């Protein structure tokens, strides 16, 4: 728009009238709380889905695992259980540590 544009004065008057602050803490606080609420819902849903998937995986593999463990010598069975348990704990720990910033990619709500 040209500096001498007659409409410029009208837009400036209206802009002044609106009086929107350059930094609006109330607007920002409300928005960031909505973002936090959405992130919470997304993370909760993701954890529920992961937990459900793990439960199903364990449930379906349990008969096979228990049969294999029962048929193997006791020492080997204990070692296998320890290895599997350690692997699960390591995987969950890694997933927990590297979870930062991942929730934003989900757009579920």
């Amino acid at each position, binding site marked *: *728009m040209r500096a001498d*544009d*007659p*409409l410029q*004065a*009208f*837009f400036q*008057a*209206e*802009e*002044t*009238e*609106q009086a*929107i*602050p*350059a*930094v*609006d803490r109330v*607007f*920002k606080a*409300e*928005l*960031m709380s*909505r*973002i936090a609420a*959405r992130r919470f819902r997304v993370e909760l849903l993701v954890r529920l889905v992961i937990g459900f998937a793990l439960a199903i995986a364990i449930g379906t593999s349990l008969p096979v695992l228990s049969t294999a463990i029962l048929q193997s010598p006791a020492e080997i069975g204990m070692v296998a259980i320890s290895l599997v348990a350690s692997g699960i704990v390591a995987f969950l720990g890694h997933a927990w540590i590297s979870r*930062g*910033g*991942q*929730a*934003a*990619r989900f*757009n579920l709500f």
Partner: protein
Amino acid sequence: MSGDPTDAALVAAARSGSDAAFSRLVDRYQQPVRLFLRRVCINPADADDIAQDAFLAAWSKLRTLRESEQFKSWLFSLAWNKARMAARTAVRGRERDTAWQGERSVTAEPQTEMAIALNQALSQLSEDQRAAVALCLAGGWSHADVARILEMPLGTVKSHVLRGRQRLETILGVK
């Protein structure tokens, strides 16, 4: 981060989970986005809610933004789409074809004569014309940027701006 990071830097930080970075983007653009929405909305009182929805959508879809330096025009595009959806919902809900013009004059309560005149003049424009005028004439955007924001052909935007300007000048008596 330095004193005045670029949009691309803030978008990258926000993508990696930084709420502080996104908060700075909100600080940077909440004023122009809300001003734009107050000019184009059926009900200017809803403009701030629509602006919140637009920023929330931006946060959710940040990873889909291909060119980080285009954040501003992308944000305005989200705001425009939200405003259009709100307009359709309002018109459908009230079953009034003329709601767009009727609501503005009732709910907007500017004080100065120039603001009143402009508000009434803007309400005489079509939805698309008002958006093009608000961005080009009031916001200082280029025609090409406005075409991208409003998802219209460049020629259509130029036509909207030209006719919108002529109509405003006629109504306001400044021609």
